[in-house]
């Protein structure tokens, strides 16, 4: 299984729709402070089902929707789509490509789609379990994760196992 691309629209600072092909093994993201690099990582964690706002640096779940800037009004919806290759059928479905989509509306409604067909979060979690995709804690290497690992009574390793 490989990542193919990600489409982000209305999620955090990505007011305009953006499509980012991810078809290489080591892809770099560079840019000034505050330009939106870590927001891309948050978008990927969110689309595969992350339920805790804190894990994607938010106070409440609605904070993911673009909330406006000096020249642009806030948006009504956040949407992210992740395209994955599935030739090896790691996800037990008869498709060579899988698209996972997540939407959140300002009124709190949320939708999940699998290859453009509405599904429940439970279905996404079921298909992804065992692939290692849903496990978010140990696939993100960043300074705050290192702090958690080294904290005196850290249970990080226990949680992962």
């Amino acid at each position, binding site marked *: 299984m*490989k990542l193919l691309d990600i489409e982000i629209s209305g999620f955090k600072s990505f007011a305009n729709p953006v499509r980012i092909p991810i078809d290489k093994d*080591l892809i770099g993201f560079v840019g000034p402070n505050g330009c939106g690099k870590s927001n891309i990582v948050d978008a990927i964690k969110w689309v595969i089902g992350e339920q805790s706002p804190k894990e994607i640096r938010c106070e409440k779940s609605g904070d993911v929707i673009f909330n406006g800037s000096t020249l642009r009004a806030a948006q009504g919806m956040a949407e992210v789509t992740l395209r994955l290759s599935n030739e090896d059928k790691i996800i037990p479905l008869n498709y060579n490509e899988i698209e996972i989509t997540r939407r959140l509306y300002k009124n709190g409604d949320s939708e999940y789609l699998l290859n453009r067909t509405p599904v429940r979060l439970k279905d996404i979690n079921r298909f992804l379990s065992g*692939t290692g995709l849903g496990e978010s804690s140990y696939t993100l290497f960043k300074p705050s994760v290192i702090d958690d690992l080294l904290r005196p009574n850290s249970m990080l390793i226990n949680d992962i196992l």
Partner: protein
Amino acid sequence: AKEDFEKNFNIIKRKFNEIFVELFGGGKSNIVIEDEQNPIESKITIYAQPPGKRVKNITMLSTGEQTLAAIALLFAIYETKPSPFCFMDEIDAPLDDANVERFLTLLKRLKSKSQILMITHNRRTMEICEYIYGVTMEEGISKVISINLQKEVEEWV
């Protein structure tokens, strides 16, 4: 569940030491379950000893040494429970040039097993990326453009 936990724990312990020696060029490391009776809830202590030093506990190391030791442990966990992709967000910031090089060597080995998305401000780290996206923000809105390596990297950093 307990057997699984201990089996994986021992794999991680062994890999942690292997990767630690590779990143530090020597020394040794270890993870120990403090309460054998109840491993799943037990506190786990991390030991790390860079080459030539007497230190035992990872908390007595410097910022850079702690980062490098923690990277070794995270890589060990990641190799034990692999995932199709992983993210690295400015993990190389506290490392000096020599340690960045050792980290990048390890990275090249890992990328053959899974996709890595790397956010960095370090030029050396950018150079080993196969593809680089530049992210900019204009009037509070993020945009992404793809950069042709080398030539453009100078401007972006």
